[in-house]
């Protein structure tokens, strides 16, 4: 009663003043920026904020709605009603809620000229009321839907539009919890509301919508107004069909995940059978599309509706035959639609979606159960569309259109082919043969220049050619188009009989032309020697053709699976086996082994294995390239083609070279003869690849991407032992090793990352099988010179004096780079020897830190060596070795700290340098800590024992190093530096790790350090991104748990956790926060409550004492009691903790709204 009186009084006395105040505030907000100051603006915003938070604002709001003429104020009044209803729901009587809802609806109905945003906000308030009411069943959707039904049947377009808006508001309010989280209710609540809604109200809405569409589709001439109503209902239909039906029994954590799915497919429950299985529904949408397809916006809606229908699956189908007949009807409708019209650009994507949904959502058995004629027509239609979209996509590219509708539609269909082709079980591949040939041919055609192809040709047949600037961030075609290439590669395998020989002949022919063209260029240059006079157009066209042919060949012949053993694709193997009897192996090997000659110049060239012949064609390309470099034509070559060649060879190597017969059911004799273990062919090809690598590394040092691809090929050759065994038998390998060790041109011109990988490869090669003398000799050539030179240098008496000489600095940098490369070569079976080798250096590196203490770039690189060693090796090291590494790292950090403590720098790069050092140090510490999570060390020792006696004997532990490091890092972590996102993330990751892993070490920190650590946590929790805030919250539980174990209560940590209790309390209960954070915050909260029960009770009491309203007071007090009911007294027990977390969620849902009110 008291509440009502106060509310009414406020309205009676204050309403006109309130309205006047709000209207003038609105005027300020709407004024142009130049007319009002930012203080005025803030003040005005504050007025609205306070207004929306005011208690029981219903009467005032009604008055505002009825009397104010300012739209913005009306909007705010609607918002205030919506927020207050949810906030005060438990205090309101149901009848007054019902009358409020009626008031709002009537209000909108009577004012057809309301601003759209005001109307929608009021309808949203209605929807929120209905939804909140559905929880306690106090308000039902039925009566609202009944009213809506009347509006629709009135035939009045304005009323119909309003009806549609109401339905839209309901749909969006019930559809997803993410859109509605602002009313502060739990996921479970949203979930159960949604389930109720989708079983009943939603279906009702669908039926009403269908009636409207039916009605409109029958009419002949629609007025513009009617047309727009039609469009709205079509959009509504699309919303219903795109409803993400929530399955029963989906846990709360999954709801959010489930709702995050992007492409929702239609999976209604059984109760929808009658509504959706009726073929008239599908026919209606085909009819609607026919009617609206001239209007691109509406056409997209209607096609999207059809695409949703095409995705229908799940329990709605009573049995398979129902599904088959549904599919058959859909396909018939679709074919009828496509065949009877000329497609608009705007229809491409929608039609591709329908096709793609049919193929991906219906089981193969359903597809094959279609009448054979229908199935064939469907596949033919798919083929024709794919080819036509492919051509149009190519046109789009040539014309550089911003809108790439055909490209997207094309890719969608190519994906569908991949889905179709991958399933061999249900239909014979043969029925896809011809379609595959056609799709493949069109792809090739679109990517080749005239006369064979149509690349860069616009619609009128004119070829365009422009040179654009391409930066390194732009992906290479092989990645950019990997999706397309994957599908085309698969099509190439399906129709291998056609595609592999086609690729071979196209490539061979172009390589011959390239050879000729380069020769002519050379003659031309001999005559004029001016590169500028060379016409690059012909060459560039050839390069582009070859580029695409090699990419497609790579995708046809091999896959590049991550983390699996790459195999020769079964289709390619079968193709080779099928033709093995017609093949002359010797001729095949001869063609393979003579890349310098034209394939067709070798007698019997037609009787070769086609798979080997395609590889040979790439080798011929490679050979033309190599010869051109020897003829000093490097500048005429394409580095892109160079990349393509080594990319192909690497991909090929992984699957084919030294193929393991045990992995295949059947093996092709030509392939095993040419590439099997212990064959002349494999030895030859290893040698060839190695020479290619060596040549590229010297010729292309200036092309870092090509050099990178090349060195990757080398790493691939040696990273598997059986291949490495062959590699080290090559004379070229030793030459390369010596050349690199001598640090002379051309290899030292390579970029540092390529040099590191090269070092890695050389080290990996050293673990191949060799007799012991050879092995000794190898290491003497590769690693020992490095050691020797380094020691000679640093042991010179006057090293400190010479240390700044350029040659000395370069030697040092080269050594440090090489060490990083060596660390990269670490594998489980070589870690022992690499570790001891590197450890020697690490100690010397510490000496270097002293000598170069004033030279930041060297200091930085030294730290990087430690980072790399820790990163690659720590997970394999046993206890003794780990200890040595910890000690080395500790010394490094000590020296770094000593040298930087009293150093004041004023030069321009000081901040940049420091940022890089800190980032590396934190990376180092995180790497050392990672031992806690990932440990592959052979001995089964436990790295960190619980028994303090055992660790006492050790000199250094990971904790010591890490805390010492934090000691260095913390004082340097200024708030400015935390603005670098990568640094900030790394920093918080590190301190959270520390709190989780070594909570017992935290209280032992020196006072200053302890304080700054706590400050960092608070800062991270309260004023950083939510990701970091979450990390900090995660750090709190272990700290609190550690405190609880300790008997001493008067410690700084104990006091700090008290402070955090207040922070987390405020965060969880009084501030709006991200729902994702509730779990992390809740766990931290519980541990802190356990630790500080008295303080927690005080916080609760203080909060309650500010509450003047008796009803609210009681609600809150009850809620707090329930919150801890299941866990009193709270203890650090997992079960209790889980019970508490569940209660907390209810708590936030029930009274969270009340607490946020001021």
């Amino acid at each position, binding site marked *: 009663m008291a509440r009502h009186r106060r509310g009414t009084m406020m309205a009676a006395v204050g309403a006109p003043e309130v309205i006047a105040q709000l209207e003038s505030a609105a005027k300020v907000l709407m004024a142009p920026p130049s007319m009002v100051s930012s203080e005025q603006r803030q003040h005005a915003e504050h007025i609205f904020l306070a207004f929306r938070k005011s208690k029981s604002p219903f009467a005032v709001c009604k008055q505002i709605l009825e009397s104010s003429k300012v739209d913005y104020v009306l909007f705010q009044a609607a918002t205030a009603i919506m927020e207050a209803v949810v906030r005060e729901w438990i205090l309101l009587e149901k009848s007054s809620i019902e009358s409020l809802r009626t008031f709002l609806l009537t209000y909108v109905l009577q004012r057809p000229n309301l601003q759209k945003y005001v109307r929608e906000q009021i309808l949203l308030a209605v929807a929120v009321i209905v939804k909140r009411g559905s929880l306690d069943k106090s308000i039902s959707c039925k009566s609202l839907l009944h009213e809506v039904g009347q509006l629709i049947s009135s035939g009045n377009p304005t009323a119909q539009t309003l009806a549609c808006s109401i339905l839209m508001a309901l749909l969006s309010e019930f559809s997803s919890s993410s859109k509605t989280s602002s009313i502060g209710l739990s996921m479970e609540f949203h979930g159960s509301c949604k389930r109720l809604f989708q079983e009943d109200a939603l279906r009702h809405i669908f039926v009403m919508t269908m009636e409207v569409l039916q009605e409109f589709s029958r009419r002949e001439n629609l007025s513009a107004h009617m047309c727009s109503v039609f469009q709205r209902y079509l959009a509504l239909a699309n919303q219903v069909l795109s409803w993400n039906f929530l399955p029963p029994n989906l846990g709360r954590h999954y709801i959010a995940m489930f709702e995050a799915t992007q492409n929702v497919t239609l999976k209604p429950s059984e109760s929808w059978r009658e509504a959706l299985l009726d073929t008239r529904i599908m026919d209606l949408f085909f009819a609607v599309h026919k009617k609206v397809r001239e209007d691109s916006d509406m056409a997209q809606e209607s096609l999207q509706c059809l695409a949703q229908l095409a995705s229908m699956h799940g329990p709605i189908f009573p049995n398979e035959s129902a599904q088959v007949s549904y599919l058959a009807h859909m396909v018939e409708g679709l074919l009828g639609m496509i065949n009877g019209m000329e497609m608009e650009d705007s229809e491409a994507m929608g039609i591709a979606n329908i096709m793609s949904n049919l193929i991906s959502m219906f089981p193969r058995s359903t597809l094959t159960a279609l009448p054979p004629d229908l199935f064939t027509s469907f596949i033919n239609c798919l083929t024709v569309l794919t080819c036509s979209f492919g051509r149009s996509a190519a046109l789009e590219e040539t014309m550089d259109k911003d809108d790439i509708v055909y490209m997207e539609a094309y890719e969608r269909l190519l994906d569908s082919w991949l889905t179709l082709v991958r399933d061999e079980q249900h239909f014979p591949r043969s029925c896809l043969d011809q379609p595959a040939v056609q799709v493949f041919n069109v792809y090739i055609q679109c990517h080749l220049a005239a006369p064979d192809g149509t690349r860069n040709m616009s619609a009128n047949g004119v070829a365009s050619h422009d040179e654009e*600037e391409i930066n390194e961030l732009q992906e290479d075609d092989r990645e950019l188009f990997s999706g397309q290439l994957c599908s085309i590669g698969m099509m190439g395998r399906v129709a291998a009989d056609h595609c592999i020989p086609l690729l071979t002949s196209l490539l061979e022919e172009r390589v011959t032309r390239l050879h000729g063209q380069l020769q002519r260029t050379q003659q031309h240059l001999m005559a004029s020697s001016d590169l500028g006079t060379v016409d690059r157009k012909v060459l560039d066209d050839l390069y582009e053709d070859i580029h695409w042919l090699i990419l497609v060949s790579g995708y046809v012949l091999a896959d590049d699976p991550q983390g699996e053993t790459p195999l020769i694709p079964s289709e390619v193997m079968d193709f080779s086996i099928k033709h093995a009897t017609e093949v002359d192996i010797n001729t095949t090997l001869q063609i393979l082994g003579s890349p310098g000659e034209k394939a067709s110049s070798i007698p019997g060239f037609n009787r070769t294995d086609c798979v080997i012949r395609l590889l040979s064609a790439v080798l011929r390309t490679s050979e033309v390239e190599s010869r051109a470099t020897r003829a000093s034509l490097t500048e005429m070559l394409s580095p892109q083609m160079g990349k393509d060649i080594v990319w192909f060879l690497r991909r090929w190597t992984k699957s084919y070279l030294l193929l393991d017969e045990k992995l295949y059911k059947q093996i092709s004799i030509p392939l095993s003869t040419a590439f099997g273990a212990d064959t002349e062919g494999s030895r030859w090809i290893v040698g060839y690849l190695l020479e290619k690598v060596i040549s590229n590394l010297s010729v292309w040092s*200036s092309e870092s*991407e090509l050099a990178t691809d090349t060195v990757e090929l080398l790493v691939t050759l040696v990273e598997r032992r059986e291949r490495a065994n062959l590699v080290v038998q090559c004379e070229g390998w030793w030459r390369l090793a010596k050349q690199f060790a001598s640090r002379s041109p051309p290899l030292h*011109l390579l*970029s540092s990352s390529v040099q590191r990988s090269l070092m890695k490869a050389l080290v990996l090669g050293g673990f191949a099988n060799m007799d012991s003398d050879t092995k000794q000799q190898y290491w003497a050539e590769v690693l020992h010179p490095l050691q020797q030179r380094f020691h000679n240098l640093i042991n010179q008496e006057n090293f400190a004096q010479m240390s700044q000489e350029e040659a000395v600095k370069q030697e040092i940098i080269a050594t440090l780079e090489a060490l990083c490369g060596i660390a990269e070569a670490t594998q489980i079976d070589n870690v022992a020897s690499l570790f001891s080798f590197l450890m020697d250096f690490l100690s010397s590196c510490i000496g270097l830190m002293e000598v170069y203490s*004033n030279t930041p770039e060297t200091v930085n690189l030294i730290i990087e060596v430690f980072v790399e060693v820790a990163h690659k090796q720590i997970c394999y090291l046993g206890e003794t070795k780990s200890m040595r590494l910890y000690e080395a790292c500790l010394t490094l950090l000590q020296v770094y700290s000593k040298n930087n403590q*009293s150093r004041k*720098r004023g*030069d*321009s790069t000081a901040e940049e340098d420091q940022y890089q050092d800190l980032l590396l140090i934190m990376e180092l510490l995180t790497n050392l800590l990672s031992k806690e999570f990932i440990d592959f060390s052979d001995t089964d020792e436990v790295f960190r024992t619980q028994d303090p006696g055992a660790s006492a004997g050790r000199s250094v532990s990971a904790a010591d190093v890490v805390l010492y490091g934090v000691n260095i890092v913390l004082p340097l972590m200024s708030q400015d530096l935390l603005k670098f996102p990568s640094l900030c993330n790394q920093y918080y990751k590190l301190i959270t790790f520390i709190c989780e892993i070594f909570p017992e070490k935290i209280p032992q920190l020196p006072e200053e350090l302890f304080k700054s650590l706590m400050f960092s946590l608070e800062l991270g929790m309260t004023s950083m991104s939510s990701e970091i805030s979450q990390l900090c919250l995660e750090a709190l539980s272990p700290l609190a748990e550690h405190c609880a174990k300790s008997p001493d209560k008067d410690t700084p940590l104990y006091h700090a956790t008290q402070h955090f209790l207040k922070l987390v309390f405020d965060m969880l209960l009084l501030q709006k926060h991200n729902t994702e954070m509730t779990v992390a915050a809740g766990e931290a909260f519980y541990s802190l409550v356990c630790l500080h029960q008295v303080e927690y009770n005080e916080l609760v009491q203080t909060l309650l004492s500010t509450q003047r309203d008796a009803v609210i007071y009681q609600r809150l007090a009850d809620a707090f009691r329930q919150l801890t009911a299941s866990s009193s007294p709270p203890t650090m027990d997992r079960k209790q903790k889980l019970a508490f977390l569940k209660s907390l969620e209810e708590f936030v849902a029930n009274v969270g709204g009340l607490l946020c009110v001021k």
Partner: protein
Amino acid sequence: MEDYETATSGASETYPQQCSSLRKNGYVMLKGNPCKIVEMSTSKTGKHGHAKVHLVGLDIFTGKKLEDICPSTHNMDVPNVTRKDYQVQLYDGFLSLMDDSGATKEDLRLPDNEVGTEIGKKFDNGESFLVTVLKAVGQEAVVATKNYN
């Protein structure tokens, strides 16, 4: 400063290096100024073109940001950059510096920045300390101070 002419003509002050093998954190001459490389990226003209390197550097003396772009096969001049620590002997607008072999050097002014202020403060407090002198292409500057340890 009096040696400016001879200093800049010395052949050993810079050496050529292929553009592609320059490294981030290393040094390069950009538009005639010694710079620390803070950013390196590549681009090419047309898909089959050759790489060009785009360099962004900070002048090691002035902090000014400088950029350059050149074909990756070209050689760029790299300055010999050295750093040397000295004891500070006297101070009167000019600094009197002594290296660990006892050689002295009196041609450097007190820098007009935080390092300069720091040096003044340390002198007033009677602390003993070292300064680091950065030197490249005939220019020199005191860039850091450091206490004895």
